[in-house]
């Protein structure tokens, strides 16, 4: 045990990370599965997310409406999410109630029922979730940009999946996906909070170690070939507001270049979790009235994904003018060495955001597992050190290597403004 952290792998392959934090009478428990939208082929897009929904539909021991009530009665909060690379479930409970969460996760790792009626009603719930997302211009644009950036790799489609597949997938498709990926050797359990490690570990072994390991599911990974030339696309939809997204191919989160690129992101679009009014793109685009909003961000992924800059265009500007100014700023970071102060500021910002994150036990348990999904926990622990090692030359090199116009996708949401 170091830094109150214990890492252990049970005999069935379930990896367990426990972190004692005695600041509030709370425990947060997360179960992570190595399955996400990147594990889906055409005809089955959205299946990982749908399985996640079905995991709330009950087992023999915890039928659907018993499950949610049991958690709520104990004052817990729980939810789940599916991403490109992983699916996660969490319960944050008063410390003396956490056993319910452990029993629930052990049970639904194997015993979820996937009743036909439940599959049918959840189908329309998920279609409704997708329709709600389609109301948002930035969802529609983001989906188009993402699928243009990935022709081969299964990062091609949105986590929610395509309507065609949501309409046609069957109960057996879902159940098969569940049984294939929900095995202890494909899962990581992370727990943080007000507990005693030794007795908690005993309880986790009691509940989980008897679950048999399964075949290690192979993951889909069709390497995306380099993009040859800029892709420009547009979509149309209701409204009066024009949106632009520019996506650059980025390396995997575990790649050494990811850290200097994090500094580039911070300088261009602001540090994640903070306002960005002194970032280069805000100054050049929003302050100079080319756009009314700019943001940028990358995801932490196993395979190379994209860095996306999103812009809401100023009503008096054309998207082309805005992209020209954006390009000037990208060229500036490629051609001129950034100041040392800019890097030290970026690191101080990251340190502050880190401090905010560790205020909260749920967040701490989240990062224990999330980092495991694309790298390992040491990635998180050494994050600030790796950022601190970034030099101005590193920044310039990665800016040149990854921000090439010929390997980007530029998408525009063109508002119809009342036109049919």
């Amino acid at each position, binding site marked *: 045990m170091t830094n109150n952290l214990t890492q252990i792998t049970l005999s069935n392959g379930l990896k367990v990370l426990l972190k004692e934090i005695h600041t509030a009478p709370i425990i947060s428990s997360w179960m992570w599965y190595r399955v996400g939208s990147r594990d889906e082929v055409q005809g089955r897009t959205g299946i990982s997310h749908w399985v996640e929904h079905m995991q709330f539909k009950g087992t023999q021991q915890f039928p659907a409406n018993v499950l949610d009530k049991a958690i709520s009665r104990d*004052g817990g909060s729980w939810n789940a999410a599916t991403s490109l690379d992983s699916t996660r479930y969490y319960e944050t409970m008063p410390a003396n109630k956490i056993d319910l969460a452990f029993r629930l996760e052990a049970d639904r790792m194997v015993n979820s029922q996937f009743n036909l009626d439940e599959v049918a009603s959840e189908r329309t719930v998920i279609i409704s979730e997708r329709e709600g997302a389609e109301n948002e211009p930035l969802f529609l644009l983001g989906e188009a940009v993402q699928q243009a950036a990935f022709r081969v790799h299964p990062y091609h489609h949105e986590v929610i999946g395509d309507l065609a597949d949501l309409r046609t997938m069957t109960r057996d498709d879902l159940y098969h996906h569940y049984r294939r990926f929900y095995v202890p050797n494909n899962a990581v359990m992370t727990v943080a909070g007000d507990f005693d490690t030794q007795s908690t570990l005993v309880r986790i072994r009691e509940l989980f170690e008897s679950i048999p390991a399964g075949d290690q599911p192979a993951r889909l990974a069709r390497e995306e070939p380099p993009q040859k030339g800029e892709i420009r696309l547009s979509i149309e939809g209701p409204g009066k507001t024009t949106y632009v997204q520019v996506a650059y191919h980025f390396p995997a989160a575990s790649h050494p270049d990811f850290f200097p690129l994090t500094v580039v992101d911070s300088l261009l679009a602001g540090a994640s979790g903070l306002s960005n009014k002194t970032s280069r793109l805000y100054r050049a685009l929003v302050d100079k009235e080319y756009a009314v909003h700019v943001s940028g961000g990358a995801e932490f992924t196993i395979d190379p994904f994209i860095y996306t800059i999103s812009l809401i265009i100023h*009503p008096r500007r054309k998207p082309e003018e805005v992209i020209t100014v954006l390009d000037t700023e990208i060229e500036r970071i490629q051609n001129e060495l950034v100041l040392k102060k800019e890097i030290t500021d970026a690191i101080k910002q990251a340190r502050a955001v880190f401090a905010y994150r560790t205020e909260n036990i749920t967040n701490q348990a989240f990062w224990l597992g999330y980092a495991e999904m694309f790298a390992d926990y040491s990635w998180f622990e050494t994050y600030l050190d790796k950022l601190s090692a970034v030099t101005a030359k590193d920044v310039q090199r990665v800016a040149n290597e990854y921000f090439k116009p010929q390997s980007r996708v530029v998408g525009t949401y063109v508002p119809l403004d009342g036109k049919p």
Partner: protein
Amino acid sequence: MVDKQNSLPGPEDIYREVLPNGITVLARSNFNSPSVVVAGFFEAGALFDPDEKLGLAEYTTAALMRGTKNRTFDEIYNALESVGASLGFDPGIHKSGYHGRSLAEDLPLLLDVLSEALTMPTFPKAEVEKLRVQLLTGLAMRAEDTGDMASMVFDQILFKDHPYGRPEEGYPQTIQNINRYDLVKFHREHYGPRGMAMAIVGAVKPEDAVKQVKRALGSWQVKGQKEAPELPSLKMLKKTVSKHHRIAGKSQSDLVIGTNGPRRRDPEFMSASIGNNILGQFGMMGRIGDVVREKSGLAYYAYSSLNAGLGPGSWEVTAGVSPQHVKKASGLIVDELKRLVQEGVTADELADTKANFIGRLPLSLESNGGVANALLNIERHNLGLDYYHRYADLVNEVTAEDVLNTARKFINPDRLVIAVAGP
């Protein structure tokens, strides 16, 4: 194990002091993380907005950090962002709020910037014009947002001829009507220390926190700070009023169905909260979620909420549904409102919700921001510093009969507002 009762804020660990100029400071230490939250409110809300300049309070808060006597817009944000601090303002109807955070070592800076923004904003003309375009773009986006529009239409009907029926962010025309001088005047007449509260939670000792607030804001004095206008009485609905606001080209409609609710300080508040939890929150969104989402598969989200503030509140059910299912979903929701006022709640439901309210309290108080909100809640509604220690008793004394009587007092299923926005 951490003692549960002792982890809740109470008189022994909340420090409260009223400064001579009227600012109330509430402080509570948390040295588990090196960060600090500063949050609070002041009395310059949208109630003061003239109809033709609706959005003025919001415009003013948005402009506070666009330049002060000491710093330009860029200097303000450079000071904050370069140390990973943040500060923002949040306009409200009665009071407007602010929320900031930083590493504890940067608390003096955060308070300096807050003080400058509140006491000496300069409203530079160029910045005011930039903001106007940003606000107008926000309104153009609101016009396309089915959730925002359904909610706005709901308020316009429920609070007809009442300030609560006006959207705080205004309308495009009212934003166009506002000029720089309006902002200067609004700030001069309505900003001041009287009625202002501040919570400081994090890695700082309460006495140090108060000392720092005194240094930054202790000398702020404003003569003739105006009193808020009296709220007119509410016009109650005489029948169900339905309105469908058309937004073409959308794939989903939002609907808001509901009626009036209690004020936060009304004796029925707790029984209404419990009734609301059973109706549309408990577990996977209560009875509403069970009927609309789980059994019928009509919506991804369908829940109820009780909005209880300083004045009369609202009790509303929200759902996002496919345009062809609006009628069916509305019918199911109205049936649930009827069931609540006819049958009330069962002993099991009541016990579940009580356990939920009491059990979840530590979770809501986990972060510095959560504690700051709790302290401000105490101050805003005069709940007493021991409120969170008494909370379990307040919850437990509510009976099923109380819930039924409260539901009947506020919900008349024949007098509802049904607002829909979508194709």
